[in-house]
């Protein structure tokens, strides 16, 4: 146990948080957030700074992220922005809007035959990678000492990044029709992701989150996850200069949990549409924390009363198992009512006191 505590302390976990993770009597079930789109939209509404500027300016970006921490007092925050950072750095074009995160417009390459044209981008120069790195640096310089927050930098997962580089439809087609070239692409992208992740760690991020929604069983089969996602996620986790990562895969993931938890150095899995009891059972004695799994759609659309009940159900299902933190199943949706977020957090504080 103390080894694991040491491990968590390395990331900046407070004693309180560690006790929460281990479901110690008297402690409270922790809550964390994945919030990018929500933060940027809130910051825009508050300051009038348009989203396209926030995501290109480290000072605004980190302020928009810390805003959430100040407002809701969460313990861990993954600085998630949009999932086009790597594709843009490889040359993809995005749509930039004033109130929402950028979206893919034109992929970096139109065909798998053009893979050789792709050059591995420089994290300190290309696309918005320098902004994300700078945000981690600003966190370390200005906020770290003042807050108990654990600040996660982030990278996209290899499947998610590669599919935006080639265009999702072409990528999906290529998985069936041209697996060799897809592997070549994934290999290149993985190298770039490792460099980017390490640059964020070096700049001051406490940890790294990996967002890999496109590898979920909502998109690709568990067999394809094993063949195309697993080896590259493994390589990334081995080569990042951190003892462990958070991996977020939203959508349907029950069929891949077994594979997912075999990825070395995975210490938090952020899950969406899964059966928590089964998932915790599958993990068994391994030290992997499950973060889940109230739906962001529920948080956006339901009433505070319903959200309280759903959160209570999650808490009761997990009970005193430990190795669990409350978390939305994905990025908070822009415009999620504040009272709904509060209802979720308050339910955690109210019903999440150990022993449950």
């Amino acid at each position, binding site marked *: 146990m103390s080894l694991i505590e040491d491990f968590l302390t390395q990331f900046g976990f407070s004693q309180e948080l560690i006790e929460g993770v281990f479901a110690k009597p008297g402690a409270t079930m922790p809550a964390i957030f994945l919030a990018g789109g929500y933060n940027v939209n809130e910051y825009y509404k508050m300051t009038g700074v348009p989203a396209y500027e926030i995501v290109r300016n480290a000072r605004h970006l980190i302020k928009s992220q810390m805003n959430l921490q100040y407002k809701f007092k969460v313990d861990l925050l993954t600085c998630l922005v949009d999932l086009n950072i790597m594709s843009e750095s490889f040359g993809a074009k995005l*749509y930039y809007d004033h109130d929402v995160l950028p*979206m893919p417009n034109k992929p970096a390459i139109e065909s798998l035959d053009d893979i050789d044209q792709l050059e591995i981008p420089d994290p300190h120069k290309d696309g918005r990678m320098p902004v994300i790195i700078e945000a981690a640096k600003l966190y370390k310089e200005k906020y770290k000492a003042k807050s108990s927050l654990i600040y996660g930098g982030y990278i996209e997962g290899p499947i998610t990044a590669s599919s935006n580089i080639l265009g*999702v*439809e072409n990528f*999906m087609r290529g998985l*069936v029709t041209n697996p060799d070239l897809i592997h070549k692409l994934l290999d290149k992208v993985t190298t770039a992701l490792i460099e980017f992740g390490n640059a964020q760690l070096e700049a001051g991020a406490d940890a790294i989150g990996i967002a890999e929604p496109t590898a979920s069983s909502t*998109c690709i*089969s568990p067999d394809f996850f094993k063949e195309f996602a697993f080896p590259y996620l493994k390589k990334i986790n081995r080569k990042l200069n951190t003892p462990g990562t958070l991996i977020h895969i939203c959508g349907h993931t029950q069929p891949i949990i077994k594979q997912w938890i075999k990825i070395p150095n995975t210490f938090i899995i952020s899950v969406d549409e899964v059966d928590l009891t089964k998932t915790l059972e599958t993990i068994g004695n391994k030290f992997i924390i499950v973060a889940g799994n109230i739906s962001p759609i529920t948080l956006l659309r339901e009433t505070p009363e319903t959200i309280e009940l759903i959160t209570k159900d999650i808490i009761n299902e997990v009970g005193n198992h430990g190795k669990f933190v409350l978390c939305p199943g994905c990025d908070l949706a822009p*415009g999620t009512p504040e009272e709904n977020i509060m209802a979720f957090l308050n339910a955690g504080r109210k019903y999440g006191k150990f022993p449950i």
Partner: protein
Amino acid sequence: MGLIENLKNAVIDGDVDSAARIANEIIDRKMDLKNAILNGLSAGMRVVGKKYEEHEYFIPEVIVSADALNTAFNIIKPHFKDKDTDYKAKVIIGVVKGDIHEIGKNIVAQFLNASGYKVIDLGRNVPPEKFVEAIEKYNADIVAMSTLMTPTLEQMKITIEHLKENGLRNKIKVIIGGAPTDQEFMNEIGADYCCKDANETVSTLDSIIIKNEVN
């Protein structure tokens, strides 16, 4: 029945080359093309839809099946002598403003095409005014909107409001789809149907046609 069955299987297997070869052979042999579309292509795509529903197929497999379907359909279409008016209904389809995820929409469009609908595809990131404009221009019977993301759900509501303002709402059936949509949301925004996948969209539209709710 051999060739038609083979065409169906080429679609199910996502075998583009075989689908093209069989489609050409069907034309050379002057076989019944309507039968080839309905019992070959459409029937194959229904099996694909079922396999997707049952988590046997995923997006990559569905895409290559749709490729096979499209390839064969494009070979057969020019030889199909029916008049332009010989379709079940006109459908305007698009991904709502703010969202660019169009794989699901493309697959639905291909299913509808192969099932005898005239489909006008407005693409992705389609603002409400564009939907209105297209409905008026093509005198459409059905409008189908989709989104994969939660934040853009609101756009469906806004589009329906635009339809009302332009006096179109009662003339057209509104179908919504995409991961975050459900019956409850459909009722909330006043859409007519919510479909979870391409198969359901085709069967829903077919049932509207049978009930004679359009034209």
